[in-house]
């Protein structure tokens, strides 16, 4: 009896714990020739399944062009998905446009890679911060202003900045404004797209601290898209490694970093320079460019660059194997 109640309880918490779940998500872009005839598909996101738990920071890492940003934008509904399902807070949002079903969308937000460019150059910061509230709420001007000012304080910006134009403030401040703009809606999940790119190291550190503080203050869940592994290691609870639109390894950050099992993850981690460590080139075997995502190799898509490649790799696409505690790997030969 007791065990039964416990079981259902754990099941319930497991369900409640998942804030965003993705099943078999695909985003294919048509590749067209000079006569606009489709000659193939660019598989930017190819059959990705993920569960994002409430309150966690899930890192998504991979080389440029592996589909990290496309994954984020497909989740946001900026790109309509080609297949699969996205369930957010228990609701299927797969084919909803960002404007539709406002209540839901307002709690899933996207923070742009270049926050300066994501602000209208002709709008003062204050007006840009008011916009999400104008769209999603019926608040009066004074109420909006009150909320904007309190958020501004949370992200550590002086109120005087409300009257500035985006080009008049620094990159780090633009990042804060970008965050404030999203936070006014009190979202539960924020997709952070390369949130530290283009910032110098000291600003990076303060921004990362800000992310942690905001997460506690507003009970946020982050999807942290980045190619900067040292930052990911510092801030993420779990990481998913993407290669050409597919997740090749996913697991707890420490497990993956200390014991990477997929050959791609191994080479990727070996590329992180460590002070006093071995020279990067010694164990960095990843060579060449990834294959053209519009024309993928058969079977395992990593086999063209894999050091442990076998003839069987060309036959079948490997599935994620959950043979280890807190770690899943898409390679049949991983140990």
């Amino acid at each position: 009896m007791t065990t039964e109640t416990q079981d259902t309880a754990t099941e319930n918490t497991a369900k409640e714990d998942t804030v965003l779940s993705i099943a078999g998500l695909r985003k294919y872009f048509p590749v067209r020739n000079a006569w606009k005839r489709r000659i193939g598909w660019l598989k930017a996101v190819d059959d990705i399944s993920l569960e994002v738990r409430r309150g966690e920071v899930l890192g998504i890492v991979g080389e440029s062009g592996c589909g990290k940003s496309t994954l984020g934008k497909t989740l946001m509904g900026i790109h309509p998905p080609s297949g699969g399902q996205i369930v957010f807070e228990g609701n299927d949002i797969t084919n909803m446009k960002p404007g539709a079903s406002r209540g839901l969308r307002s709690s899933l937000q996207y923070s742009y890679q270049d926050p300066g460019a994501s602000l209208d150059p002709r709008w003062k910061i204050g007006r840009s911060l008011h916009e999400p509230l104008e769209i999603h709420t019926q608040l009066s001007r004074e109420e909006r202003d009150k909320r904007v000012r309190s958020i501004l304080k949370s992200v550590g910006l002086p109120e005087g900045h409300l009257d500035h134009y985006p080009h008049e403030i620094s990159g780090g401040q633009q990042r804060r404004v970008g965050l404030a703009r999203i936070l006014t809606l009190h979202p539960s999940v924020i997709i952070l797209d390369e949130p530290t790119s283009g910032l110098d190291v000291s600003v990076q550190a303060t921004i990362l601290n800000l992310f942690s503080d905001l997460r506690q203050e507003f009970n946020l869940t982050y999807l942290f898209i980045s190619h900067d592994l040292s930052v990911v290691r510092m801030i993420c609870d779990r990481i998913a490694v993407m290669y050409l639109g597919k997740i090749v390894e996913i697991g707890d950050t420490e497990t993956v970093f200390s014991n990477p099992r997929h050959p791609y993850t191994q080479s990727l981690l070996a590329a992180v320079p460590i002070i006093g460590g071995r020279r990067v080139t010694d164990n960095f075997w990843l060579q060449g460019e990834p294959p053209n995502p519009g024309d993928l190799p058969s079977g395992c898509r990593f086999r063209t660059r894999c050091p442990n490649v076998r003839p069987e790799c060309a036959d079948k696409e490997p599935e994620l194997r959950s043979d280890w505690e807190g770690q899943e790997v898409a390679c049949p030969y991983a140990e």
Partner: protein
Amino acid sequence: MEMFRFIVRKLVEDRVALLGVILIMALIIAAIAAPVFSTFPEDVADFHPKNRLLEPDSMFWFGTDRMGSDIYSRILFGARITITIAVVAIGASVLIGVPIGLVAGYYHGWFSEMLMRVSDIFLAVPQIVLAIAIAQTLGPSIENVILALSATYWPFWARLVYAETRSIQNEVFVEASIALGASPFRVMVMHVLPNISSSIIVRTTIGMGGTILTAATLGFLGLGAPAPSPEWGRMISESREFLPEAWWYATAPGIAIFLVVMGFNLLGDGLRDILDPRIRRSVHRDK
């Protein structure tokens, strides 16, 4: 408001554009204060056969026409017709062309294609020919000149706004607003339109000059306002019988048209230098 002050400051620095502003101001003042400045206000309609075709002198500054009316006074009143035609025709073109270009540029699909193909058809027909056809069918009057000009001018704004919308659409801030949940109407009116307004302002200013010239052409061909009207194109048309002896008859309205068209073109060029986003952005970077 800041924008407006910025434009005024830059215009004052740009001597050539300032000349354009002065010429346009002169036209506006002439139109408004025509009864005050004209020496023979009643001469717009009246005729005095004994004063027929007099050379310019201290009494008739620009001479008199075939009816014996004072050309100087008629030119001042003609400014009213010129301004009315230009403002109403351009205003209508902007009101038709801008929304069509905005919608066609924002959405991608058969409807956008259709809108742009329709405007292409209008662009393919030579403007004067289409205007003549419309004015000819509906009869000569100022209203029909305005109608003909609006019908032929709107595709220029549609094309311009279409192209600018397509390019601004790729900017991250537009996508960011859509991601925030902004409606298409909101994105078009509050984000896209303000960011392309400078191109529209420049095109509209230069378009004014072109419209005045076309209106004068239609007047010259006898398709504008009927007989006693002091329309500048019509005045030149009337003068043809008396050239070259009555040289002043065509000269005064000719110079008036020339100065006004030049004024709008100079101001348009000046505004383009000030408002062109590429030039402006480089100015910001230098700071």
